[in-house]
């Protein structure tokens, strides 16, 4: 029997408030949908008023998703910041894929357990004119490295995710996605 779980790929993102973690999760998820896949997203924002940590869970598959919204293991991770990443650390599967924002991230990674892709995302974003684009850069890198979302998908996903009153950012976001995609080459 071919397990229905075989095709499921998990992604967990962690960062601190304002780094665009939730948006990146949405862009990747919407991108996967634009590519015709099945997706599940569950965000946890910490206690509303405690400020600080923000993380999100995305599952992508070609089949209906079996995974529940809270994961106990993840195939891949995007680490935007080190501050609240401890709980995630143990969840990364052996042989997984970890994207780390080296511009900011200050902690040890178990490089022998999983593949680490270093992305100076905040620096690149700052070069692109806005440090807040770091998450978009990461999304671009992730799409290509993971093979889960196409660049077209990401761009379409970004368009669907950006709220109307932020539409002036679409172009910059697109550039950031493209930049990330390019960096992952």
């Amino acid at each position, binding site marked *: *029997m071919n*397990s*229905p*779980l075989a095709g499921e790929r998990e992604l967990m993102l962690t960062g601190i408030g304002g780094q665009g973690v939730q948006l990146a999760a*949405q862009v990747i*998820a*919407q991108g996967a*949908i634009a590519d015709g*896949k*099945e*997706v*599940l*997203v*569950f*965000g946890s924002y910490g*206690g509303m008023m405690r400020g600080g940590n923000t993380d999100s869970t995305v599952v992508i598959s070609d089949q*209906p*998703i*079996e*995974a*529940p*919204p*809270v*994961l*106990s293991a993840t195939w891949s991770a995007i680490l935007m910041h080190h501050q609240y990443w401890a709980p995630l650390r143990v969840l990364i599967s052996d042989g997984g894929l970890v994207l780390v924002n080296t511009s900011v991230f200050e902690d040890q990674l178990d490089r022998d357990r999983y593949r680490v892709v270093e992305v100076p995302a905040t620096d690149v974003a700052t070069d692109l004119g806005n440090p807040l684009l770091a998450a978009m850069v990461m999304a671009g890198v992730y799409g290509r490295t993971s093979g889960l979302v196409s660049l077209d998908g990401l761009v379409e996903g970004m368009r*669907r995710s950006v709220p109307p009153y932020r539409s002036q950012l679409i172009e910059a976001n697109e550039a950031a996605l493209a930049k990330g995609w390019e960096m992952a080459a």
Partner: protein
Amino acid sequence: MSERVLIEGSEAMARAAVAAGCRFFAGYPMTPFTELLEHMAGLLPEVDGVCMNAESELEAVGMAWGAATTGHLAATGSTGQGLSLMQESLSEITNARLPLVVFNMARGQGDYFQATRGGGHGDYRHIVLAPMDVPEAVELTQLAFDMAGQWRTPVMVLGDYYLAHTYQAVSVPSFDTAAPEVPNWALDGSTGGSGAAKIVSPLGGGVEGEEGFDLGAHYAACAAHIQAMATGVEPLIDAGFCEDAELVVAAYGSVGKFVRYACLRLRDAGHRVGYIRPITLWPFPSEAVHKAASGSAKAAVYEQNMGQMVDDVRLATMGTVPVEFIGGPSWDHSGFGIGPDINVPDISERILETMP
């Protein structure tokens, strides 16, 4: 059918409700029900429907009751405390034979008894559907409105924080803005003056003091209707790998999805374990549960409470297979019922420990 969109469970359910013909909604904020209320408030005006920000849950259920008497599909809902406040009305709405959909976005799974036995006074029961995830919630929301209309009864959709806050890709049918047909028992005032004006009452119809009005007969008819639902409503269940399972594990709702996933993984790892996920909690799919469990040496029930559905599983199997309770409440500081014990490794471990 519209395009597939990534939406949060709350919004998906709201869209599904409106697509199913819901034209009235009333609610009072309470996490994780609030989001559903807010989406209904946004959507209903699109179809000339009404969404009331009721001043309390007691008033919300009363408004929904009133709207239901007009034959338009109506819904309400709440969470925990708010549902408790609605119990008096839910009991009587059942006796008044009114269709109503109740979205119970619960915190944890402590409210299974309230949902399935009716927390209100009297001997009523109503249909309860427990989706495991967003796509199923969309389907069951549609079904809930259909069943409510067909059986003239409240139908509860029992969700939780996970369901409310998970985004999944779903296809929600588009809204039908045609004026809905209203059933012939519904009120619109027009039979007044005819000598036989309609009445909608939890005490039954007919004229006081005349043959037609007979409280005893009405209650007997209500009881008969409950029986008719108990046997006539098609029980729904999702079960897998039960044929050759040494242990079958029962669970429902979002938690059912965790358990199902744990079982899939354990199967992948070669363990002979099956799962049973009741979807109609009332009527409980007793026969199917009995059948699913009958081949295995043991059954287990995982629910996030001190043991409630386990009674129904035991009543379904009646000693033919030992039924072990392996759940338990799980709470974190938020009180939203998303405690730390609800995770696949812990569940898997409990399952493995229970293997015969």
